[in-house]
């Protein structure tokens, strides 16, 4: 076995232990450790990705010395490695973009605590991406929840504590349901490793045994993960959690944490239940309907919002709806579109959060639209970045959002029964997106005669501006040269089989 095959294990372990190390370090050193770890993991994932692309074969890695049905396993394919790399990029940029706000919003003595949480979160995300074992997945789902709660709560104002409690309750409900589903699945199949469960499940389906418990188990797991990834109507925890936490947390939560759960769901669909068996259940119709409703209601809530951060948060509900709509189509093309949208939304949403903070900072910290008037002139880089993010969200060509809409609609045209519904809702939701994002863009670009707020120049925020530019470039790359990415997603999905 090639040495590179150790990399997934190294990345998980590295981020886990660096978390522990951070607890003993002063804040500055913890920050450095955190950055170094994210970069290292990113590089490891990139090498792994290249290796997998060259071999074209996924590999399974034993954790310990026990073979398949007993031991714990890690599994890596192109999609896993690519996701890990992408998560690292987004996490690094979000941390770098929000670093300056951390000093204002989090007590100095708790900074290293913050980095512990981020490292733990990275560790759990990587584990969710790589693991081949359902129970390990469950354990890291819990770790993920706990660190996410910490990230919300670390900025200690009333709203965040309330938001964290809310998030905790909803998330635990989600993981509880996941655990129920898992128990039933274990009961039915006697296995915890994904590949083994899949064999047993296909056997059960072929023999027509235990149909209802099987469906119930799948449904429980789906609902559990839907709650955790804030699919409509389980999104009530989301606006406060994203809206009031410190900005890096918001960016990470919206673009990575929810995506980690969705990725786990994809793995469950492909690796545990089997794509065809999953599609033959009615669950995909339910996901489809709730996806569509999320697309519309999320946007409507966003339109009614008067707070820029909460508006962006509500827009996440709509975007998660897109992803589930792709699942609900029940085709390979729909799945590819959803995975592309995971990437596209992660790149865009974190950009919007980071840009919004630049705008609110030059408006005396106020997030109300009335105060944001003309903010783009006071912080030009944030204004331009917010506009780029908005255009991507609205789906203007050249940005990533257009490609994901294109992929969704191409997928929709292939599904006879769901074509009209998805295209119409796609259209409505795009227009709704346009309403609230363009409203905001115009608001921040409306000139004010005399502003009581002072602007900020490039010299005072070099690091921040560079992060914004990186985000925009990432968006444009996804929008202009999407074909390699789509090819990689298809290759990765093929490796799931």
């Amino acid at each position, binding site marked *: 076995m090639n040495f590179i095959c150790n990399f997934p294990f190294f990345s998980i372990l590295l981020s886990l232990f660096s978390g522990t190390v951070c607890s003993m370090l002063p804040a500055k050193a913890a920050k450095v450790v955190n950055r170094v770890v994210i970069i290292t993991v990113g590089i490891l994932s990139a090498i792994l990705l290249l290796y997998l692309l060259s071999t074209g074969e996924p590999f399974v890695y034993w954790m310990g010395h026990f073979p398949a049905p007993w031991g714990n396993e890690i599994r890596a394919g192109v999609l896993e490695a690519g996701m890990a790399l992408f998560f690292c990029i987004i996490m690094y940029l979000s941390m770098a973009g929000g670093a300056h706000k951390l000093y204002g919003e989090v007590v100095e003595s708790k900074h290293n605590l913050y980095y512990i949480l981020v490292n733990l979160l990275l560790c759990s995300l990587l584990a969710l991406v790589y693991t081949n074992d359902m129970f390990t997945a469950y354990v890291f789902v819990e770790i993920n929840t706990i660190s996410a709660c910490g990230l919300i709560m670390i900025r200690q104002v009333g709203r965040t504590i309330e938001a964290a409690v809310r998030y905790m309750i909803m998330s635990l409900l989600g993981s509880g349901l996941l655990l129920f589903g898992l128990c039933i699945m274990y009961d039915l199949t006697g296995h915890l490793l994904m590949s083994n469960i899949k064999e047993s499940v296909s056997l059960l389906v072929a023999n027509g045994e235990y149909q209802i418990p099987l469906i119930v188990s799948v449904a429980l797991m789906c609902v559990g993960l839907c709650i955790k990834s804030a699919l409509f109507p389980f999104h009530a925890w989301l606006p406060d959690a994203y809206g009031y936490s410190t900005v890096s947390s918001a960016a990470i939560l919206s673009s990575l944490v929810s995506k980690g759960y969705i990725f786990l769901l994809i793995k469950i669909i492909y690796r545990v239940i089997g794509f065809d068996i999953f599609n033959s259940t009615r669950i995909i119709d339910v996901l489809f309907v709730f996806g569509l409703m999320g697309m519309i209601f999320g946007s409507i809530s966003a339109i009614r919002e008067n707070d820029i951060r909460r508006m962006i948060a509500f827009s996440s509900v709509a975007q998660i709806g897109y992803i589930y709509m792709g699942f609900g189509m029940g085709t390979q093309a729909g799945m590819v579109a959803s995975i592309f949208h995971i990437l596209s939304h992660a790149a865009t949403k974190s950009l919007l959060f980071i840009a919004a903070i630049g705008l609110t900072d030059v408006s005396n910290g106020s997030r109300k639209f009335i105060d944001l008037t003309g903010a783009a002139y006071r912080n030009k880089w944030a204004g331009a970045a917010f506009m780029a993010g908005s*255009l991507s969200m*609205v789906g*203007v*060509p*050249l940005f990533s959002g257009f*490609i994901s809409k*294109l992929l969704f*609609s*191409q997928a*929709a*045209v*292939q599904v006879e029964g769901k074509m009209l519904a998805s*295209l119409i809702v796609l*259209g409505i939701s*795009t*227009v709704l997106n*346009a*309403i609230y994002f*363009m*409203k905001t863009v*115009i608001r921040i670009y*409306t*000139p004010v005669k005399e502003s009581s707020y002072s602007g900020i120049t490039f010299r005072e925020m070099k690091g921040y501006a560079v992060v914004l530019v990186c985000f925009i470039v990432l968006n444009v790359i996804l929008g*202009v*040269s*999407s*074909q390699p990415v*789509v090819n990689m997603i298809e290759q990765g999905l093929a490796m799931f089989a």
Partner: protein
Amino acid sequence: MYLILLPILFPILSGAILLIFFRTSLKGNEKAKRKTLVIISGSLLVITALLTITALLTAKESFTLFYLTETLPITFAIDATGTLFSLLAVIVMLCAGFFSFAYMKHEDHESRYYGYYLLVFGVLNALCFAGNLITFYLFFELLTLSSMPLVLHNGSKEAVMAGLKYLFYSLCGAYAALFGIYFIYRNSTTLTFTAGGVLNPSTVAEHGSFLLLVAFVMILGFGVKAGMFPMHAWLPTAHPVAPAPASAVLSAVIVKAGVLAIIRIVYYIFGANFLRGSWMQTAWICLTLITIFMGSMLAYREPVLKKRLAYSTVSQLSYILFGLAVMNDTSLTGGLLHVLAHGFIKAVLFLCAGAIIYTTGKTRVDELRGIGKEMPLTIWCYTIVSLGLIGIPPTGGFISKWYLATGSLKSGLPILDVLGPVILLVSALLTAGYLLPVTIQGFFPGADYDYGKLEKQEPSKLMTVPILIMTVLSVLIGLFPNLITDYLTAIVSAVL
């Protein structure tokens, strides 16, 4: 080969540079600053125009810039239809651009205006040169985005709301069209514009009726930009609030992007043979006739001059769409001819309105008594092009309407073949009714008018010369129509 890219990239880049760097990088007092700005923008504008004409004359091959996805190239190619629209765009953009150097003196944020003006120029060129539907769509969206700042230029509440309205209508329309692009993408061999259409015969046999619906939705969607009923309401709101030269560009060129879009999908994607005689054609013709009549009616009742002209644009654009919808050679020639005629005429009308606003500050038609005595040259030009728009020979409007009416009569469509010319005539009457009062009251203010307070208020040469040039052009179209109709015949015979 790269020549085709220059008229697109150069104005876009120079516009962006103007937008980003101009305000901070200049020293000196306001007047000197303005002079530099005008000189820079003017030369950029002229260079762009020269580049465009060079590209039109020399670039023959198509050029693929990059691939959006494996099967979606961003391609530029110049064909006869694109050349026609591009020429109109160059002339109007140049004239209105020079007009704005004088006009924009009394507005703020001049550098922003010129920056977006250049952006719009580049995007318009890209639209004319777009070689396939996806490229076209890309720049159609960009056109909306880059022209919106021209609408909300003065930043007042009214202007911003008008800009938003423009944005929403345009985006909704574009998405309706995108909805159709998905279907075509799936049901055709290519998205490249090909005279006669690109649909697979097998698809037509299988999904024929559904494709008609798709075509109708796309025409409605792109028709938003061309102010077609029922999605015309943005136009009379958005055009008047922009600075006058920007209104001229909006009314004369940018709305033509919607017309070009419809030409492209009807004649280069679906193919006229597929659509002719279907319910879709009937419905479309009805919509255009409703728009023609309604636009003229609304213009007739409107007291504010610029708004009146905007309603007139709604009506006149549907003349063009009517010509496209009838789908025979004569009507199509008429429609294309009216693209040119209306482009020049409407630009002159808006620039005249701008000159009046600039010198006197008057916006309502009933305030304009005696204006002809004060600004004789401007109002003479106004009168000449008005006659053209009404359709009195020997001006350009007469020829195009002649073709439209005869095309309609020989189309053989039940009822509509006669109803069309009737409505065209009624509307021509209304056009006279809403345009000529300015002339009549301007030159003949009546016996009770106090001639003593008249003063010479003719605007500067920078304003009158562009108006004069386009007036002459609009008359030339009417005097020597064969030059153009020969050119149009080539287009028409290729696509029909």
